[in-house]
């Protein structure tokens, strides 16, 4: 019975076209996501000194990478966007994905090593890219399939189990990621993180003042987090709803209704966008990963006739 449940979970639900649509939609999101994550490289002088990294990430220590080289970061970013475009188009798909993974490792490594920042925004995307790399997502809706009939034929022959497990693995990772964050808060700080409104007040206050403060101690920019920080009840609600959202996220894996999933994920997306506006947490575009919770081929099939009608009307 356990075996059957395991097989039903991991190996059913998606087709190779679903994988390909995920590759395209996620890739389009990534084009913008990369910009939001690496824009700081454009604030340094490409001809300037090479900063000696203060806290190199583990793989830089292993490889002996010691400096930020702005020219390399500029070139790496440009190549990253080209590789993402390659993935979207399905042009040498596996190579495009592999290049993306390598460049994300490099660029994120540089960004996080300068003064020892730690950001978690690429964790889910990098796992998604890893599973797309292992999958046959390039065998449908791709330049590779158009140019090579053998690839197209192989794509048509991909069975359901082979197309499903990479997407299910992405879903499991994403759900786990949210669940781990609630575990981490409990392990490091305890229940008080969720029960004491000062946690949220402290965060909002600190973030509201990062652009400076007036003599009265009020922020010089964006008064909203400062106002919200003073509403103790709202801060309690925010802390509690963070717990509910993060602890309850894995339940999405069991939700059969696409509408229910959409509703829940809209709520999570609202949480991320609010965090970006109120606390400058850079997860604003993170919801691009939520494509994994839908069968995008099914969406395409439903939407396609609508666009066909518009096209025929206009012609």
């Amino acid at each position, binding site marked *: 019975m356990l075996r059957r449940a395991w097989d039903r979970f991991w190996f059913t639900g998606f087709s190779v076209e679903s994988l390909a649509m995920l590759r395209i939609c996620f890739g389009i999101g990534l084009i913008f996501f990369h910009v939001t994550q690496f824009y700081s490289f454009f604030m*340094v002088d490409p001809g300037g000194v090479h900063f000696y990294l203060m*806290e190199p990430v583990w793989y830089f220590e292993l490889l002996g990478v010691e*400096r930020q080289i702005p020219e390399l970061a500029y070139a790496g970013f440009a190549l990253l966007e080209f590789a993402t475009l390659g993935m979207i188009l399905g042009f040498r798909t596996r190579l495009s994905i592999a290049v993306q993974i390598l460049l994300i490792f490099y660029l994120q490594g540089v960004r996080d090593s*300068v003064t020892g920042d730690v950001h978690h925004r*690429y964790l889910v995307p*990098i796992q998604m890219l890893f599973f797309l790399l292992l999958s046959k997502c390039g065998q449908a809706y791709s330049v590779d399939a158009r140019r090579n009939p053998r690839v197209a034929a192989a794509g048509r022959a991909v069975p359901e189990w*082979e197309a499903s497990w990479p997407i299910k693995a992405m879903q499991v990772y994403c759900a786990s990621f949210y669940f781990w964050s609630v575990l981490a808060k409990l392990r490091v*700080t305890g229940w008080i993180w969720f029960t004491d409104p000062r946690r949220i007040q402290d965060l909002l206050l600190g973030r509201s003042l990062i652009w400076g403060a007036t003599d009265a101690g009020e922020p010089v920019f964006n008064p909203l987090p400062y106002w919200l920080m003073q509403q103790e009840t709202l801060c309690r609600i925010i802390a509690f709803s963070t717990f509910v959202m993060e602890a309850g996220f894995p339940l999405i894996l069991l939700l059969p209704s696409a509408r229910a999933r959409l509703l829940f994920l809209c709520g999570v997306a609202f949480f991320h966008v609010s965090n970006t506006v109120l606390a400058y947490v850079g997860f604003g575009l993170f919801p691009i990963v939520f494509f994994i919770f839908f069968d995008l081929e099914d969406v395409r099939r439903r939407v396609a006739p609508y666009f066909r009608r518009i096209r025929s009307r206009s012609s």
Partner: protein
Amino acid sequence: MTRSTVNRLLVAWLCVIWGAVLVRSDSFPLTWAPMYSAWEPEEVASNRVVETDVYMRGMLVTRRDGTTGYVGARELNISRDHMYRLFYQRTFGRPPIFYMQATGNIGAVNRWLRGLEEGESHPDDTEFRVFRSLNKTLGQEPDDPGFIVRVQASIEMMYRRFDNLSKIWRDTRVADLRWDESWRERW
């Protein structure tokens, strides 16, 4: 890949990602997702008064030959975010948050894995790292006359009690880091 290979891969992958969570590994691409987890309840909120011009200008440094000057974002060729952390956090002895997250409320097994004694946290070498990064970026070696031997900065802090947010008081916090000649061994 055959189906049984995929099964084996999935089991191995689940063991690895959950293993990272158990041992609190936050080494990309593994994580235990500790973002914003570290917090200590306090009655008083303390915030620095951020002044963009001041932190972008940087720290006042004294060189081995006695000359002084400022070293900031332009001289070090780093972005505003990085300069913010260097000035307000590292110069004031605050190491990256991941050290605190990794060892906060740590259990016996994880303490043993990190070689830490009861009550001990990650060894703090932030000051050394500040001197190493500044000097190496600017091409200075310990015997050079231009080698930075002292780093100073001051910031204004703002305080308020959580039960009376409208009442604010301020003071000034000073950082005064000095090069320790014993660090040459690690240079």
